């Protein structure tokens, strides 16, 4: 008896230690980035293009990377939504609940979700060479779209699966076709669409390995789809490799901006999930 209580105490202490360690990691990652980068962050940093040669330093900021990331993430999110909402609808309304095809499809999206972005990048790169495309805003956007589609589908499907069949049957009994129930479904999964979008934006904006091959890098803001473009993560990575301290400072400031965006996304995701999920029929 005594031994079991002792064991209980030991493991409980270990659990507290584990939780404390997790908290410590979160705080340490966020605070170390802020501590190094926040003093460097200025209006000039976020509103100007890099001055001078890329590795040479000089003044300026990383507006190119901010705008590039916004273009890529915006484009990819819209394309991703256009593709994944119909897929989720198809999986949950057109297919029977225990269909084999649905099982295989969901498994495939799980697998696609697990494939690392460097592989997406390498694959996208070979396709682009095959089609004669060069690294460009278009290429980067398409690869990021592929990367986030599984996230969209999986997280929306998770919620769509829980829609009670009575709801669908009520619509059918009023004479609607399956297609016409899309309004009902979309309304039911609206909070899931919102959280999935935030999740995808978070993944898309932080992805570096996928866009490295396919979007390239540029000190200027792209004016057409075929131009190369910078992205925030790559601007952090490339500028950190520079020997010039000024350029490195730019990287740390960019890291702060990236962290702030991700913090904002994950906090608002939680809020949406808590606030809007009560409108759902359980």
């Amino acid at each position, binding site marked *: 008896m005594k031994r079991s209580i002792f064991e*209980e105490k030991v493991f409980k202490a270990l659990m507290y230690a584990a939780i404390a360690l997790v908290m410590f990691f979160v705080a340490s990652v966020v605070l170390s980035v802020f501590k190094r980068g926040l003093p460097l962050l200025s209006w000039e940093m976020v509103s100007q293009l890099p001055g001078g040669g890329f590795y040479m330093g000089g003044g300026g900021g990383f507006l190119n990377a901010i705008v590039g990331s916004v273009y890529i993430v915006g484009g990819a999110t819209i394309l991703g939504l256009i593709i994944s909402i119909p897929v989720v609808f198809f999986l949950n309304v057109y297919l029977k609940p225990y269909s084999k095809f649905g099982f295989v499809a969901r498994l*495939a999206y799980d697998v696609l979700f*697990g494939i*690392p972005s460097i592989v997406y990048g390498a694959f996208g790169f070979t396709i682009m060479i095959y089609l004669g495309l060069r690294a460009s805003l278009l290429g980067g956007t398409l690869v990021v779209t592929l990367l986030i*589609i599984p996230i969209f589908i999986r997280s929306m499907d998770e919620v769509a699966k829980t829609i009670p069949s009575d709801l669908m049957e009520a619509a059918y009994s009023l004479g609607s076709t399956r297609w016409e129930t899309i309004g009902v479904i979309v309304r039911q999964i609206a909070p899931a669409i919102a959280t999935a979008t935030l999740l995808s934006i978070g993944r898309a904006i932080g992805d570096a390995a996928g866009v490295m091959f396919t979007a390239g890098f540029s000190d200027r803001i792209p004016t057409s789809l075929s131009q190369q473009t910078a992205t925030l993560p790559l601007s952090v990575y490339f500028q950190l490799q520079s020997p010039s301290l000024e350029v490195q400072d730019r990287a740390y400031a960019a890291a702060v901006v990236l962290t702030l965006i*991700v913090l904002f996304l994950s906090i608002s*995701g939680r809020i949406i999930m808590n606030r809007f999920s009560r409108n759902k029929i359980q």
Partner: protein
Amino acid sequence: MNRRRLKDRIAGYSMFILTISSLFLVVAMGIGLYMKASPILQEHSLWDLLSASEWKPMKNQFGFFPFLMGTLWVSGLALIIAIPISLLTAIYLTEYSHSMVRRFVYPFLDILAGLPSVIYGVWGMLLIVPWVANVAAPWVGRSTTGYTVLACGIVLGVTVIPLLVSLFIEIFSNVSHELREATFALGATRWQTTKNVVIRKTAPGIVAAIVLAASRVMGETIAVIMVCGNLAIAPGSLLDACYPIPALIANNYGEMLSMPLYESALMFAAFILFFVVLVFNLFSRLVLKKIKSE
């Protein structure tokens, strides 16, 4: 009436095509990467590629052994660090804690899960690499730059904690409360219940979650490049530099275009990664799905 039926049909078919084509992506990726990798497989045998340790693309020597070992060392260490922390955290959150505590801890896990790889890389360079160079290495009487397997494993271990915790929590929540209450009624402590009922019952799920986490760790790229040291020699200890496969692909894509065989070698690396991740994912997802449906 007929027009509505037609609309329903057309929508159905077009959505079916959309679903099928996104599924086809998995197959296309496998075939595409394999075809790109095939030139080098014709020139060198698979075993030669995997076991040779000379990497000199200019001299037509492509040995992947250092990179494979780099990936193995780094992923292994990351899992050794992440598994106990995640397991204990998940057990505490599902078996012990109040819902208040959970509401407090979950946002932290969210943040950890949401932070991009490159930020972990920056963190690694700012804190972990100097720590390895100034504290860990002198402690065992060695000197390094800090860009080592150890630094890389720590950074990767932290990146994978949120995934492991959320998988473990999901698995543990599947165990019915009656089972737990039955052991409590027999006088077992919470830890005894956890150890003998919850963990034993979910053992296959725990293994599947770990396999999934392993596949995630192996594909991590930017954080790895920033702290691994990028030295193409198979590491012999935790304090050696390493060069995992994703870093190899990402570092060399610029120069590979001039040589067809070089490009093929890198695509072979991507194919290895794809293949391993595919197998790991299929295995663990099938196990997890089976557990969930029980």
